[in-house]
């Protein structure tokens, strides 16, 4: 008769049984993982989108992450590392020496061959039939409009971090939108139609007048939205390198310039607001020069012996403007310009900004100089912002590159609304009867001011015959909606301009052409009948 199992034997059997069950479970799990799980296709892999789309105000794409692949290799699987390095270099354009060095380095079990592999390259690599290659899904930032808005949109580095322009300035918004919606959107204030027109006209003018650099800005005077910003030379954001003559510098935001006579807009605004200029028909002596201490102020062009205040702005007289600003004095001029925001860097979503340069001592000669735009250097964006405040009813405006849906963002009252009205009429007069005639566009009541500034050389002295010309236009002047600013750095006169390179010949016509093309697109009403001017009513 069999003896009953002892306690130890029972325990051994139970232990063996548990081991069998455990191994069976492991075996079943292995079968499940290796055979069944691999068949279910796994979860759908979402495309790698680290950054949301950047669009213009109408939803047109400015920048988007598109799916690409990065190619990696495990060199331990290669039979002949040198041959593999040569083949991969030929297929992808990578450096063969770098690849071979990495393949032979035992510390690199996983080597990056090429980033952003296109489908063509992928096919060529697959055709090599090499083992140990892996394509990792990645994303590439692509800018479909290329150079058109390159300076303002900016670029990202290969790891998808913004390094300039709105790509850097709006980085938190772009990342947040991508996180929230997978492929979200951040709508900018840019209007690509306007941007293209401005870029086209400015580029043509830069070529025509052989200017070193050129730029332009279109801004909504009530919302502060920047509809277009152009800075030439520009660059191709879809290439990592720069072509000859290209530049990543946004001269409209990060450079400061003495802008010359366009600054007279602020001198006249101050004089009218302070009532130091009581009538625009007041007559001022002009003569051949205006002495302030040991300095003599001259005119850029021949002027009559006397001019009314209105014509001082229209003909852009330095001597007349000097007399007008000296009535307010240096301290008041400094205070007024600071009040208008011209003595501080302008803050926007763009990371590129510039600190203005202005005199440390604000004596009479400095007051006169600043009055006609010399001796003070501001960024064009800063200038446009202050000019928009002058014409929008006199209220502070903060420029923005984010879409505001036409919201009125005018803030603090900076100048009297009546002063703003008078200034608009004066700017219209400059275009109808003064130096800005070539900017006039039928039906849109353009107002504006020319500016031709001398260029300081490396030793601080002005370079003979070198000018920076600009034109600041506002339209429609009776109910201002947009400021158009055009800037040329050292343009040269042509046969067509009779050799003249002053702003009235170079910058003003561009502003006119831009307005003529963008006004219908922006829905600005066409008014064949000219508007009432303040000069028709007593001041």
């Amino acid at each position, binding site marked *: 008769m069999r003896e009953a199992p002892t306690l130890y034997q029972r325990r051994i059997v139970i232990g063996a049984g548990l081991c069998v069950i455990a191994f069976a479970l492991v075996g079943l799990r292995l079968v499940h993982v290796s055979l069944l799980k691999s*068949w*279910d*296709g*796994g979860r759908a892999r979402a495309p790698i989108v680290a950054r949301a789309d950047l669009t213009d105000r109408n939803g047109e794409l400015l920048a988007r992450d598109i799916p690409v692949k990065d190619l990696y290799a495990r060199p331990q699987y290669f039979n002949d590392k040198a041959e593999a390095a040569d083949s991969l270099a030929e297929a992808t354009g990578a450096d063969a020496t770098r690849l071979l060095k990495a393949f032979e380095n035992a510390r690199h079990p996983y080597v990056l061959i090429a980033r952003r592999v296109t489908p063509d390259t992928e096919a060529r690599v697959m055709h090599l039939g090499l083992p140990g290659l892996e394509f990792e899904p990645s994303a590439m930032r692509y800018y479909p409009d*290329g150079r*058109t808005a390159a300076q303002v949109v900016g670029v990202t580095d290969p790891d998808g971090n913004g390094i300039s322009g709105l790509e850097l300035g709006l980085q938190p918004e772009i990342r947040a939108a991508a996180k929230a919606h997978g*492929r979200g959107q951040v709508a900018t204030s840019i209007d690509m139609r306007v941007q*293209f027109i401005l870029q086209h006209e400015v580029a043509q003018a830069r070529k025509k007048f052989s200017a070193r650099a050129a730029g332009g800005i279109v801004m909504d005077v009530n919302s502060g939205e920047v509809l277009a910003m152009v800075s030439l030379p520009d660059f191709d954001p879809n290439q990592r390198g720069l072509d000859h003559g290209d530049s990543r510098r946004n001269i409209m935001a990060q450079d400061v310039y003495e802008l010359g006579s366009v600054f007279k807009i602020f001198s006249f605004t101050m004089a009218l607001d302070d009532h130091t200029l009581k009538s625009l028909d007041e007559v001022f002596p002009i003569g051949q020069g205006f002495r302030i201490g040991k300095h003599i102020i001259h005119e850029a062009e021949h002027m009559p012996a006397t001019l009314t205040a209105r014509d001082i702005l229209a003909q852009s007289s330095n001597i007349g403007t000097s007399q007008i600003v000296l009535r307010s004095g240096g301290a008041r001029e400094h205070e007024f310009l600071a009040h208008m925001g011209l003595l501080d860097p302008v803050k926007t979503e763009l990371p590129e900004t510039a600190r203005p340069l202005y005199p440390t001592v604000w004596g009479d000669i400095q007051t006169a100089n600043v009055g006609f735009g010399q001796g003070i250097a501001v960024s064009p964006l800063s200038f446009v912002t202050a000019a928009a405040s002058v014409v929008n009813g006199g209220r502070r405006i903060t420029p923005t590159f984010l879409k505001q849906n036409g919201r009125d963002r005018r803030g603090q009252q900076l100048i009297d609304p009546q002063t703003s009205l008078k200034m608009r009429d004066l700017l219209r007069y400059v275009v109808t009867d003064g130096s800005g005639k070539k900017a006039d566009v039928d039906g849109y009541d353009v107002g504006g001011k020319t500016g031709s500034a001398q260029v300081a050389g490396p030793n601080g002295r002005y370079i003979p015959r070198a000018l920076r010309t600009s034109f600041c236009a506002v339209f429609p002047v009776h109910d201002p909606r947009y400021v158009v600013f055009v800037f040329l750095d050292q343009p040269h006169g042509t046969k067509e301009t009779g050799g003249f390179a002053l702003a009235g010949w170079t910058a003003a016509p561009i502003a006119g052409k831009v307005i003529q093309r963008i006004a219908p697109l922006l829905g600005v009403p066409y008014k064949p009948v000219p508007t009432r001017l303040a000069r028709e009513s007593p001041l």
Partner: protein
Amino acid sequence: MIRVMNFFCVALMGLAILALYHVSERTRVARLELAKVNHEITRQHSDIAVLQTEWQHVAAPSRVQALAEAKLGMSDSASAQLASFDLLPRRGENAPLNNTPLRNANAVLPAGAGRTIAVSAPMAAPPVPGM
């Protein structure tokens, strides 16, 4: 009786196991199909995103203008706004009637130094009776 009951219960359990396996298998297949569809949707979205980007690239104003100048002999010319875009009829809408601002639009275009071109436009086709 107990044996019959036992047999019945075991049979019921077997059937339940089979049914459960069937449901489980169908669920697995459905999940697999769903994963495939999701995968396809993601791929299609990705392709659409690339196509949209390509479209934006080929339809960029700079490219269109260059092609229009090179292939069609077109060039920049003076333009004037005859009417607002809001006044234009949308597809399927009736054309504007007589005496609307659109039909009576007119403008004077600058056409080079000192010359002007008068444009008076019936901008849309006359209204069709019965429309």
